[in-house]
């Protein structure tokens, strides 16, 4: 196979994508003059079956042993053409690509300049291909288990699918309970399914499934290794409650001296909890947790005579000596399903969120209409920070709002806060909440929605939007400029842009339809897994169209809103996609690892150890060898650990360590071809 290079050069037209700008005939003529080029051809679509057949045919008939394809980016079709070489009986690493589409024809409209550049790129590829060497992609075993980070609806769905298929799942959730944002919701649009009713069975399933190891109140601390063999370290935060003994009876929470003193995060801080709490009644696991930030005993070291929760617990589950536990395990694949945060409405000061009690975010309002929420599902006017009345004093019945106004696109489609994207769920959840107001508060409650555009694109969405308008919800097109108070009422200042009429709309309560934003702590996962972000700062998929659940890191997949805003059915669909993608390597049991690894020429290595210090994966170590009777130290690469970055090759003083396919010797002719005037 080696011996004198016989190179085939294939210039792709890509329809008119390339040929419309680059003179492909001229590039072929030029390629024929290059050293060792045996055949040079152009073809309309090299990636098509006949295009690939052309290459296979030439390998067989013209005895090619190197192939240069000048077409799109190697990030697109390198795997395709590698397979072509393989089917022609050639080692797939004898391929070199020249990117004359993304980095030439599409960006340089001038045909002469583009053709000139294409020639240079082809020349560089040809001269590099002369020095290519055959490589062997090694196979490693895949651990038949998956780590899923985040137990919202996406993480839960992925976990159930993978566990049902018979693989082990480690499901890690930061909060004390699984469920994520979906369990906070009251109803789901457009079918008005009760969110808890469809969610809780799944939550219970993940807790009981024999193949799922559920770790709540836990955080992934370290991830090492590579596809098939990730090493995971998880910190199980101490709840100060023995989860095996706790029966979830709740007597401790009633007894807690701090009961009702702290805002409950699950209720978007609308309701109150004590220092020992269960975030919501359907929590899974149904166990209590002591918040060490608010517990008297844990912060002050003293809680009356003795902690009341501990005294009250008949099961003896409360234990203040419990410590964080570190768990280590191995998995083959990882799914990231960390979800989102809602937009911080304080960043739009004109809406006076945080200033007026009755300006709420939609998620807060969602808790307000929810039967398990702080008001038991009654929509009432809010008085924040109201002191609890003394026992015995008669509670005044809270007022019910007579009119509620929704403002859409708060923090979405808004360059002024840096979010250009549409959050995709707000139009519909607003319609749903508007319907719930009519349903629960009564038809007399006046509901107005200020909107920019209504995007009712999904299955059943437009019909639902129609229904809500028929129910008497008033839609006004216009983006309010200000909210202020006049007497007891809030005034929403806006312009009806359909009639060009400025208006000052009087209302009792304003609900801001806040958009979805990347989690504020999403840096933690980026640092663990080296994920990329798109410009909206959500995690980036490997390809926006064709690999929407994969990431640039093999064996790591995305599910749910962490990849970009989506509604529940889309999140579930993506979660199922991620689960099936993760099951591919686990089911086959083997996966090919990086072949373009580094290796050491032990005859010239002087054992200085620079590379050992540089290697980010500790893949290089110094070993003692016998050199002509003398024991000397040389570097040696563990190829299973090497990921092929080449940092060692750039640092080696003697050029002894080199990266396969990116050796100095292979890159220098490429530099020469491109550098020369």
């Amino acid at each position: 196979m080696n011996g004198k290079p016989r190179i085939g050069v294939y210039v792709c037209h890509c329809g008119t994508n390339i040929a419309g700008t680059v003179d492909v005939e001229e590039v072929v003529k030029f390629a024929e003059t290059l050293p060792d080029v045996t055949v040079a051809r152009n073809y309309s679509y090299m990636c098509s079956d006949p295009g690939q057949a052309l290459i296979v045919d030439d390998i067989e008939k013209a005895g090619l042993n190197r192939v240069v394809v000048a077409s799109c980016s190697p990030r697109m079709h390198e795997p395709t053409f590698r397979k072509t070489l393989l089917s022609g009986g050639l080692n797939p690493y004898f391929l070199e690509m020249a990117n004359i589409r993304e980095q030439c024809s599409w960006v340089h409209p001038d045909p002469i300049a583009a053709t000139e550049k294409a020639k240079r790129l082809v020349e560089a590829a040809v001269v590099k291909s002369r020095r290519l060497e055959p490589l062997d992609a090694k196979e490693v075993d895949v651990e038949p288990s998956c780590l899923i980070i985040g137990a919202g609806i996406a993480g839960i769905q992925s976990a159930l699918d993978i566990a049902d298929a018979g693989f082990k799942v480690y499901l890690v959730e930061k909060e004390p309970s699984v469920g994520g944002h979906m369990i906070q919701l009251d109803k789901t649009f457009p079918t008005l399914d009760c969110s808890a009713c469809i969610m809780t069975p799944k939550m219970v399933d993940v807790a009981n499934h024999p193949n799922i190891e559920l770790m709540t109140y836990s955080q992934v601390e370290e991830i090492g290794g590579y596809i098939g063999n990730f090493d995971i370290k998880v910190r199980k935060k101490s709840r100060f409650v023995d989860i095996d003994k706790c029966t979830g009876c709740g007597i401790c929470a009633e007894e807690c001296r701090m009961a009702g003193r702290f805002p409950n995060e699950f209720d978007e801080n609308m309701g109150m909890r004590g220092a020992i709490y269960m975030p919501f009644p359907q929590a899974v696991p149904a166990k209590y947790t002591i918040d060490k930030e608010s517990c008297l005993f844990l912060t002050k070291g003293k809680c009356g005579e003795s902690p009341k929760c501990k005294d009250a617990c008949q099961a003896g589950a409360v234990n203040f000596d419990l410590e964080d536990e570190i768990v280590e395990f191995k998995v083959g694949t990882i799914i990231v399903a960390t979800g989102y945060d809602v937009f911080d409405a304080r960043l739009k000061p004109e809406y006076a969120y945080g200033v007026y009690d009755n300006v709420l975010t939609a998620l807060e309002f969602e808790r307000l209409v929810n039967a398990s929420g702080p008001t038991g599902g009654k929509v009432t006017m809010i008085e924040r920070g109201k002191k609890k009345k003394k026992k015995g004093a008669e509670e005044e019945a809270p007022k019910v709002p007579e009119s509620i106004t929704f403002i859409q696109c708060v923090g979405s489609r808004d360059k002024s806060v840096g979010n250009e994207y549409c959050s995709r769920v707000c139009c519909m959840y607003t319609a749903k909440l508007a319907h719930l107001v009519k349903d629960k508060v009564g038809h007399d409650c006046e509901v107005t929605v200020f909107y920019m555009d209504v995007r009712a694109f999904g299955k059943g969405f437009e019909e639902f939007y129609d229904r809500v308008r028929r129910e008497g919800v008033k839609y006004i097109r216009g983006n309010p400029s200000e909210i202020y108070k006049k007497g007891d009422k809030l005034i929403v200042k806006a312009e009806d842009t359909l009639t060009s009429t400025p208006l000052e709309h009087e209302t009792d309560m304003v609900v801001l339809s806040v958009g979805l934003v990347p989690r504020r702590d999403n840096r933690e996962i980026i640092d663990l897994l080296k994920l990329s972000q798109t410009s909206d700062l959500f995690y980036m998929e490997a390809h926006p169209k064709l690999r929407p659940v994969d990431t640039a890191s093999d064996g790591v997949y995305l599910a749910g809103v962490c990849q970009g805003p989506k509604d529940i059915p889309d999140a579930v669909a993506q979660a199922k996609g991620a689960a099936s993608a993760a099951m591919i390597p686990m089911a086959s049991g083997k996966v090919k690892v990086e072949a373009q690894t580094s290796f050491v020429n032990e005859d010239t290595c002087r054992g200085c150890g620079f590379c050992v210090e540089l290697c980010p994966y500790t893949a290089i170590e110094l070993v003692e060898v016998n050199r002509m009777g003398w024991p000397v130290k040389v570097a040696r690469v563990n190829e299973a650990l090497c990921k092929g970055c080449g940092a060692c090759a750039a640092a080696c003083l003697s050029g002894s360590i080199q990266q396969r396919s990116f050796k100095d010797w292979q890159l220098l002719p490429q530099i020469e071809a491109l550098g020369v005037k």
Partner: protein
Amino acid sequence: MAENKDFEPNIVAFLCNWCSYAGADLAGTSRITYPSNVRVIRVMCSGRVNPLFVMNALQQGADGVLISGCHPGDCHYMHGNYYARRRFNLMRNFLEYLGVEPERVRMSWVSASEGAKWKEVIEEVSEGIKKVGPMDQFKRRQLNW
């Protein structure tokens, strides 16, 4: 060095596979046009760029060299881009010592989603090198006895 108005610099760029090369591809997919005088060599990580490559490119006649990698903290290989940055800084001193304008060698961070930034970088680098003029320090000069 005399500034030549018609001078179009020839720039060799080393891009890492995961961020900058993908960013340059995105510029293509989004049809963002930029000067054609940049020729790209793909390496897996900007940390692979041996200073030798840069010197070699200048020696071959390139007027400028660009090294581009992932943003700090985002390197696909943990910290290859930091190695690249450190080498780059040392190399600039060395270039100055050799009598080559350090401005010829540039470094940038372009992520996979920054197609528009890639264009900005190219235009800026191209303008900068135009100001410095053609690279002829390494050419054999006719000795004038």
